């Protein structure tokens, strides 16, 4: 492999495909060729020969609004990365005082359901109202890699989904995924 000496201009040889749902640089580049209004997460503005050097990042955007070509301020790149050792999907069984009982289904590895008891205090204050029987949450234990060093972390986050309306439940109940594609 090689990453040095990029000096060519790719624009003449870029496939003009607006239908790409990938997020990496090449695809942002393609959209720049065709559209009048564009943004993306892996673009390097004017300097298309730098695109490859930004792979996997989620930064950068360039916009063309009519005749104006704008480069909005770059958002600071993420400098902290959470590496999970284990992740579970949990469901609340009951709440009693300072703790709540849950079932935990590992999202990685063997799918063996376990029961556990978690302190309410471990949940962010504004999510404590979510703690009720049946509520779903995600619990990750791992390392937060930061410029200042690695830190062990535990993250609990409750599922946030807008509720389906009764109309939706009535009309969509029973339709499985494959039925959409048989139409």
């Amino acid at each position, binding site marked *: *492999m*090689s*990453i040095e000496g*990029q000096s060519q201009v790719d624009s003449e040889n870029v496939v003009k495909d*607006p*239908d*790409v*749902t*990938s*997020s*990496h640089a*090449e695809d942002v580049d393609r*959209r720049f060729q065709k*559209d009048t*209004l564009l*943004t*993306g*997460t892996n673009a390097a503005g004017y300097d298309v020969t730098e695109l*490859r*050097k*930004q*792979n*996997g*990042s*989620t930064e950068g*955007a360039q*916009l063309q*609004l009519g005749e104006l070509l704008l480069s*909005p*301020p770059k*958002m*600071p790149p*993420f400098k*902290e*990365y*959470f*590496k*999970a050792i284990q*992740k579970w*999907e949990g469901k609340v069984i009951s709440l009693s005082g300072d703790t709540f009982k849950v079932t935990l289904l590992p*999202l990685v590895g063997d799918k063996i359901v376990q029961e556990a008891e978690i302190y309410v205090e471990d949940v962010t204050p*504004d*999510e404590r109202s979510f703690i009720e029987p049946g509520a779903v949450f*995600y619990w*990750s234990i*791992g390392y937060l890699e930061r410029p200042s060093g690695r830190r062990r*972390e535990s*993250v609990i*986050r409750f*599922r*946030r*989904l*807008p509720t*389906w309306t009764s109309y*939706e439940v009535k009309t*969509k109940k029973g339709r499985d*995924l*494959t039925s*959409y*594609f048989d139409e």
Partner: protein
Amino acid sequence: MPQIQIQGTSIVLIGNLNPAIFHPSWFAAHNLLRAEEADAAIINIVHPDVASFKTEWLEVNIVRERFQISTVQESYYEALRDIAVGILGLLSHTPIRLMGINRDFHFDLVSEDLWNELGHRLVPKQDWTPLLKSPGMQNLVVQGVRLDDLKGYLRVTVQPSARIKYGVFIEVNDHYILKTDEKEADGADKARLILSERWDESMKRGFDIAHAILKSGEKG
């Protein structure tokens, strides 16, 4: 064994969108983000043609025909999925034609020899050495048909990592075609169902493909 140093996940929707509504406060009002998260968001721009902001774990970039949310925090992958599911539920009549569930990884191959070995294995150089001096793989894209019952494809990109010396970047684009005809409805519903029912499968597939590529490099 190569180690994952950085990884991320993104969800991309292609359709007809109204970027102006995608302000962090809209996410909070619909219970998609915590109020504190929305308040602390760094807003790049929210405009009728584009919305772009970032929270501690989430990055949002939306233009009229493209919606993208991403995270590099592994603990929030499911939360990312839930945000997309929530938005698709709220905007269920939005025409959505295509969806990508993407995983990307930066692996550290530790040594230059292993790094070159993987590049040579994926793109053998014997046909290139007569043509170029010191040919090196810059960007490899391979696409295959889906193995499930849905329309779309799998596309894998491998590049030298821009973040890690002697690292490799691998992205797996799990691409779904939701509508082939403009008259078809339910693109948003299809996307929501796929995210709800096939997410774990897609995540695992991306992980397995990325690791299989690296293992192929280890055999040499």
